[in-house]
Each structure stands twice: as C-alpha cells, then as structure tokens.
C-alpha cells in the first residue's frame, strides 16, 4: 500500500518526523519498505499483511496511526443513503452482493481534475484519467471501497448484477477482450455485459470526454467469487485486491456519498436517482472478553488494565470493565481479523511494543524421543565424507521423459508445474548425481565423487509413497576405476557394520553393467555403470551405488570388537585374463569352496592391458590371502592349496593364466 504523509495528515494528527513514523509503523507490524520525499510530501510504501485489508485505505491507516501515536482522528461522515427517483437495478445473485448502491447523475462535464486531486492520486501511485474516474480512485484510496463510474448513455435499460453466460465476451478497460464463464459475476444491462463485477470495467461504457450521464456503482461483492474470477482470468486490480479481502458496506456508502458530492462540485450536473440495496451498517462487531491475567501470562508482561483499555480504544474498540481484571471488548466492524481473545493479545502486544516484552530462556520439557533413523542418516553422511565423497543437493523434480525411461508409467506427476522440465517427482536419486557430473565435466572439473541423501517418490496404482534413498557415485573410465569405486563402497558399508557383501550381475537396460548388491540375503541396492554423456569428456562413466536408507539402516550394525590373529598370513599372486563378458562371480564360489577357512580374502592388485592378450580380454593380478586364526601356516600347505586354486582357474576355458 502506497500512501503519503499529507494525505494521511488530513485525517489524523502526526507529530513526529516521517522517518520516525516509518519506524514506528514497522515496529507495529506495518512494514514500511520505502520512504521518499516528493514535492513537499513524503511517500510511504508499506507491506500490508493479508489479514489487514482495513489498512488498504487512508481511513484504516488513520486508526492505526492514532493507536500508535495517540493523536486525534477527524473524518466527516455522511448520513445514511436513501433511495430516491426510479433507477432500475436487479441483483440476481443476492448472496454474492450483500450491498449495492447505484447513483445516476446528469449534465456532468468530463475534464481534467483539479491540482489537489491529481496530487493525491500521484501520491498513492495512480495515474490521472479525468475528473470522474480520478474521483472514484480518490475515494477508493480514502475509504478502501472500490467504485465504478459508467457512461450511463451506454446502458440499455435496467442494470443487472448476474452471473455471466458461458462464453460471453467483454472488451475490458485495458483494451483486452476476455471470455467469461458461468461462475463469473458481471454487471450487465438488458443486452450485454458492461463490467466484470469488482474486477474491471468495460471499454464501451467507460467515462469519455463526451459523457454527460454518469452511473456510479458502489457495491460489496463476495470475496471468494471475486477471487476465483480474478485468479481464473489472471487479472489482479486495485478493486479485486480489496474485494478479495474485505470491503465494508459502511465505507462503500460513504465513498459513494463523497464521490457524488465531488463529481457535482467538479463536473457540475445533478443527481437524478439513487438506489440502495442491502444494509449499509453491515454486520455488527463481535464482543470478546479479555482477561488481564491471561494476557499477562501469555505475553509475560505486567500490564495494567487502563493501559490495555487505552490501546484497544485507540484501535477503535469499545471497552467496558467487566470484572476487576477483565474487559468486555466490542470489536470494531472494520477489524474482521479480530475474533478471539488471543487476537487482542496480539493487538496489545504490537502497540505496547514487542521489544518491551521480556526475554526468558529455559530448557524445554519433551515427550518426543531422539530418532535413531535420523542419527543414522547423520552418521552415513560423515562416513561418506570420510570415504572421500562430497555431498550434493539436487532437485526432486525432473522432466517426465526421464521418469518414463526409468519407471515406465509408475511416477508421480504435478498438475501445475512451473516448467515441463520439472513436472515429475523423481523415482530414484542417481539422475541428479549424473547431471552434477555432466555439469562439472563440462566445467572442466575432475576427481568427481559425490553422494546425496534425499527422498524418492514411488507410485503403485493410485497410491503414492516416498522414502529416503542414499546414492554415492564417482566418475571414471575403465574397470580399474570401477573396482576402486567398489572398494570405497565396501569401505562405507563396512563402516556401517554391513559385511559379507555380494554383487549379483543384473541386466538393466539403463546401465552399461549393473549388479544387485546383497548382504546376507538382504538386497541392499543396485550398483551400476552408466555413460555420463558430458560434451567435454565422452569416455566418462558414472559408477553408482543407490540404496534405500531404510534398508541400510536395517542392515547396519554398531561396531563390535572381534579378536584378530597376530599370526602372519601368507599371500600368493596369480595373473590372469578374463574373456569378454565373463564374470568373476562365475568362478569365485568354486575358489572359495576349495580355499575353505584358509582363504581369507581375494583382492585385485594390478591391471594389465597388453597387446599379447586376445582382443577384449581383461588382464588382472589377483592376490590370495591365506591364514588360520589358531596357528601359523607352513609354506608347503599354502602351496598345495594355492596350486589347487590355480588349477581351477587353469581349467576354465574363459580364463587365461599369464
């Protein structure tokens, strides 16, 4: 809301400098975001919260300024309106139009507004049009009641306030044609629509230099109806903004009276008819009991009854002492946001000053318990960092085409996305990491090791569900990089107490290669290799491990000491090459079976890419560790066992020993 000091000063006493007024208003809840001098006046720009439509007028602001500064208010009010002459107006939707006043003037002269009026309009940020329209705008800002002036010569017969017919069209004041729906409320004559009620007038019936007869509408329309139409049309005007919130019949009638008076004074002419429908007084204000003890307890203040009564009176309440420590408060009609005692607590607190309320710090009681699952999440993040991965945050919304590729049709879609690139909730996390890889590679970054913990969103039939996932990934090229990544994933799992992890090959069309990762019959998640698709590095592949956080949590065990052997183990190496497409898992069980208790682990220690290997073969050196917990092994018995293992490898037609 924009307003000026001079405009406000006409109606309420202000005895402090503008900057101080701005500060006091801000501390009372009307945040002044800008204050600028302009031709002997000061222009305030204030943010008005959605619960305070009364502050969208100079009239309402005056009450607020009085409450803060304690000065006097001076508003001349007009006696109630009464119908006279014959002016045919039909309200067909009475529920949506609680108050309607139509006034008809003849012999009016349309010209430029006098200087004082133009100044007032400029100070609230409205451009001048002509004396008639300017007067309606002036009254809108003064009283918070939107008025609309029609060129009455364009009205054919009676005025009807009705719902639009589906598809009815109106060329609006802004020069745009709008198509109406049967839910929209309109002002019409016998033949056609003249205006969209409470939102915008029609071009054809607008006030123009030739206008002699003016029909002035002052009405209150149903907030919800205006809001729906305004939203549907995407059209927000000074009028609709106020009708959506609150417009009072009393202020509307006052605005109508003042406008007619000003029009007749400025433009000459005479009033030939008035038609009033509905009650001018509007609904009565509610009564609320305020207990001083409850107030002081809620705020932790030591306020006295007279202090509280003064604040409420200045805000426009009528206050009566009820018992020795409570007040019966008659709430002002213009403060529909006040309905209960607690609302008055806020009124008292903000005028008294939030800064005057004491500060108390105490340890709070709690029946809620620490969540072990959340602690686990924190732990996993730290373990991932230790393993050398950087945490990223990627968007939960992805394009639909991507979701389709990932999960067929079982994804969760938004109906009102901002852009089509962000219209589906992602069914997995690794797409986000892949995008971060692509971005970083194109930005010439290397050594990319990322992780993320976030929700994925799943759908089964019509039922949706979300669960937290964990994804960890690296960028690399060949099998060597993959196995290094695999080692780091195993380190992370082992830090969680998840041991005996197996990798079962899977054919997944999204991945170049993939494996189901299991530990003791529990499927943990999936590991996969996928092309990153970066422009700057065509060879780059993403190595990904993704698992449900809940599953990891279930599989995790706290650290537990296991006795270890001080006896030296013996290691033996074998260099071999694997045929393309052959998986080590096809032979590993046999090796383990023969190795038994003595074979404690197998690791890769070297890679070999020689021209003497058949095409596609992958050369590796494996190291076999032999050990028994209870005694030292002899070289002879290890050699015998190792020879058997070598034999198994040698017998495979898919493996070449080097």
């Amino acid at each position, binding site marked *: 809301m924009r307003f000026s000091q001079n405009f406000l000063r006409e109606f309420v006493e202000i005895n402090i400098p503008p900057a101080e007024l701005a500060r006091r208003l801000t501390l009372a*809840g009307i*945040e002044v975001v800008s204050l600028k001098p302009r031709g002997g006046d000061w222009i305030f720009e204030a943010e008005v*919260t*959605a*619960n*305070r439509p009364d502050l969208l007028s100079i009239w309402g602001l005056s009450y607020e300024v009085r409450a803060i500064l304690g000065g006097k208010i001076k508003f001349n009010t007009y006696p109630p309106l009464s119908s006279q002459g014959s002016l045919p107006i039909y309200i067909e939707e009475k529920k949506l139009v609680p108050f309607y006043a139509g006034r008809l003037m003849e012999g009016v002269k349309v010209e430029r507004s006098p200087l004082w009026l133009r100044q007032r309009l400029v100070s609230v940020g409205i451009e001048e049009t002509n004396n008639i329209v300017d007067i309606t705008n002036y009254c809108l800002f003064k009283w918070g009641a939107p008025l609309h002036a029609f060129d009455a010569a364009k009205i054919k017969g009676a005025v009807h306030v009705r719902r639009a017919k589906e598809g009815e069209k109106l060329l609006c004041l802004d020069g745009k044609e709008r198509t109406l729906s049967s839910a929209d409320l309109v002002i019409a004559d016998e033949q056609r629509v003249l205006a969209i009620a409470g939102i915008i007038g029609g071009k054809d019936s607008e006030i123009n230099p030739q206008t002699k007869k003016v029909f002035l509408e002052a009405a209150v329309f149903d907030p919800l109806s205006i*809001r729906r139409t305004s939203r549907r049309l995407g059209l927000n005007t000074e009028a609709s903004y106020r009708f959506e919130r609150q417009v009072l019949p009393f202020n509307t009638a006052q605005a109508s009276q003042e406008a007619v008076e000003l029009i007749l004074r400025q433009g000459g002419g005479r009033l030939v008819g008035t038609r009033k429908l509905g009650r001018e007084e509007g609904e009565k204000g509610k009564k609320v009991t305020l207990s001083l003890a409850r107030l002081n*307890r*809620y705020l*932790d203040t030591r306020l006295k009854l007279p202090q509280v009564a003064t604040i409420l009176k200045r805000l426009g309440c009528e206050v009566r002492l009820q018992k020795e420590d409570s007040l019966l408060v008659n709430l002002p009609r213009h403060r529909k946001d006040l309905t209960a005692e*607690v609302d008055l607590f*806020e009124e008292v*607190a*903000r005028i008294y000053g*939030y*800064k005057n*309320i*004491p*500060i*108390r*710090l*105490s*340890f*709070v*009681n*709690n*029946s*809620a*318990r*620490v*969540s072990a699952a*959340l602690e686990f999440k*924190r732990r996993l*993040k730290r373990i*991932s*960092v230790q393993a*050398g991965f*950087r*945490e*990223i945050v*990627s968007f*939960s*919304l992805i394009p639909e085409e991507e979701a389709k590729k990932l999960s067929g049709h079982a994804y*969760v879609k*938004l*109906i*009102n996305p*901002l852009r089509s690139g962000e219209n589906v*909730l992602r069914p997995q996390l690794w797409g986000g990491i892949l995008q*971060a890889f692509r*971005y*970083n590679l194109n930005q010439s*970054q290397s050594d990319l*090791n990322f*992780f993320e913990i976030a*929700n994925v969103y799943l759908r089964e039939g*019509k*039922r*949706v569900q*979300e669960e937290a996932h964990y994804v960890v990934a690296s960028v690399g090229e060949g099998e060597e990089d993959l196995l290094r990544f695999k080692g780091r994933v195993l380190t992370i799992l082992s830090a969680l107490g998840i041991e005996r992890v197996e990798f079962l090959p899977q054919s997944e069309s999204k991945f170049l290669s993939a494996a189901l990762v299991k530990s003791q019959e529990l499927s943990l998640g999936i590991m996969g290799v996928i092309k990153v698709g970066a422009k700057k590095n065509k060879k780059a592949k993403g190595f990904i491990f993704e698992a449900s956080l809940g599953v990891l949590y279930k599989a995790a065990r706290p650290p537990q000491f296991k006795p270890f052997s001080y006896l030296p183990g013996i290691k033996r190496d074998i260099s071999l090459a694997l045929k393309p497409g052959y998986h080590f898992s096809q032979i590993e069980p046999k090796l383990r079976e023969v190795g038994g208790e003595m074979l404690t682990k197998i690791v890769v220690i070297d890679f070999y890419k020689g021209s003497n290997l058949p095409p596609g073969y992958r050369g590796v050196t494996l190291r076999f560790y032999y050990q028994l917990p209870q005694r030292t092994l002899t070289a002879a018995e290890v050699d015998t066992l190792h020879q058997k293992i070598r034999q198994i490898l040698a017998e495979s037609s898919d493996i070449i020993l080097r």
Partner: protein
Amino acid sequence: MEEEILKIKKEAVQQIAAATAAELESLHIKFLGRKSLLAQLTARLRELPPAQKPLIGRLINETKRTIEQMLEEKSGALAKAEGEEFDLTLPALLQACGSLHPLTLVAEEIEEVFKNLGFVVAEGDEIEDEDHNFSALNIPLEHPSRDMFDTFYLEEGLHKKETQGRLLLRSHTSPAQIRVMRNLRPPLAVLVPGRVYRPDAVDATHSFMFHQIEGFAVDRDLRFSDLKGVLVNFARKLFTAETQLRFRPSFFPFTEPSAEVDISCIICKGKGCTVCKGSGWLEVLGCGMIHPRVLQACGIDSKKWQGYAFGMGVERIAMLKFGIDDIRLFYNNHKKFLEQFNAF
C-alpha cells in the same frame, strides 16, 4: 697414549672422507666397535698413572664423539647425493577429500543449538495433503492468506496411506508440526528440517525447491518471552554474541501473536550496507505463539497448553553466514563451490 689417539683420529678423518655409503658401516665398526683401537685404549686406561687417567679418558671420549659426528655427517651427505633429500618448499600434491553440503552444515548447526535446549529432531513427508498443509494450520483453502503459500499439486486421484484433501508438495515444514502434535502428547519441543516446494521461478534469490527448519514447543506455561529467549539464543550462537534482534509484528495464520525476526546486519553491524539495503536489519525468520485453533485441530486443549513455533529458510541463513550471493549455487553442485566447505 695421547699420540696413539691422535693418530686414530687422523686416520678416521681420512677414511671417512673417502668412504662410500657401503663402507660407512664397516668404518663405524672399525673405529667405534667393541674391538676398535679406541676401545682397546679405554681398556688400557687403568694401566696409566692416576694423574693422567681423567685427561686421557676425556680425550678418548671426545675423539669417539668426533668420529661419530663425522660418520653421521658423511652418511647425511651421501644420502643427499643419492637423492634422499626432501624439499619442503616444493608445491604440495593435493589430497582429495569429501565434504558436507553447506546446507547440511548450517542445518546441523541450527539443530545443535536447539538440541542443547532439549529439542528433538523429527522429519515429515514431502508429499502432504491439504488438511495438514493448510486447514489444520488455520489457513482457509480459498483465502488471500493462501497467496503466501503457492503450492504444487499432484495429479488428481492419487492418495497416500491416509489422505485428507488433495495431495500436494508441502509448501512449508509446518505440516510435520501437525503430525507430531497429533501423534504425541505435550510437553513437546521438536525441530523439523526438510525440503519444501513453491512454484517460484528460479533466480538469484528464489528456487522452486528449498530447505526450511521449523521448530515448535508446547508446554503448560510457555510464553511469548520464551519464544524471544530461544530465538535470541539461536541468533547469538549462530552468528555472533553481539547480534541484536528485532521482533516485528506480522501475520501467519497459524500463530497469534506473530512476528518476523530481523537480526542486526552481520556485514555492517547495523550501520547500513548493500546486503541489508541500508536498513541495518536482515530478516531471518518468522515466528509466533501457536494459534489456539491449531492446538485444537491437533486435539490439544488450548486452555491448558501454550506453545510457540518458528520457521526459517536454511538457504537464507547459509547465504548470510557464508556470504553466498546466488541461491542457485546450492543446487548446481559445482565442485569449486562444494570444496569450499571441507569442514565437517
């Protein structure tokens, strides 16, 4: 005897100077070993007259030390010559490491401040329904107050385990407050961090997805002064001990009284700069006493229990704390951004 000692020393000087690395060990044995000439002379000390004993003894020890020193120097010199020297002034080989996202760093720091006051962290779902996101929070479904909470809706006809109203992506973390209050009896003090969504076009200060931390407490005698207390404590722990707070009356449908909280600008200390747009204040969070209607919507008797709630944007706090000027940096995941937050 003195002459013999000096002769040994002279011989040692010559031989050590000419020795290779392999020869040094045998020279050590020759001159300082158990059977060395100096050892033999030491054994013969007792044959000397008492007056000479200390003098010759001292000379033998000095000679031993000198030879030892020469051997060590020679060994060092040979090592250097063989490339075993270390140059600490060469530029470092960088060691890769992991890191937490700055949003996690800030969220966890905020959590710690409140945990120390007895708060417990909980999480809620991101897919919520109209009841939890709006109605139970005293936000009418079709009302201008809804404009503050523009929301993404899910396709029609979908449902969750228990759904009241249409499904949506939560536009704030407050629905979790409703869920906790409906599931647990007070006293309560809970912190809810998480992702929230609003249809805001992305620019330097807006994003359709961002992070919030919501906190609330319900007990028999919680007052507005307690709300001020926890927030003053929070701001001084998270920023500096000198941070000033300003509570401005505001409007949220779920709190009454409501306030917006500004901190004294951490850049200019309140003098006015470009970050605080000259005002000296930075808005950091919204708060208030939980509206009695919200307590009642959760089956909590508002005559017996009072509570407060507050909520803040994690990005906003992180941007102020780390001096980040573009919100998009949080979601681009540029390595040069991430590696600035190696602390964890």
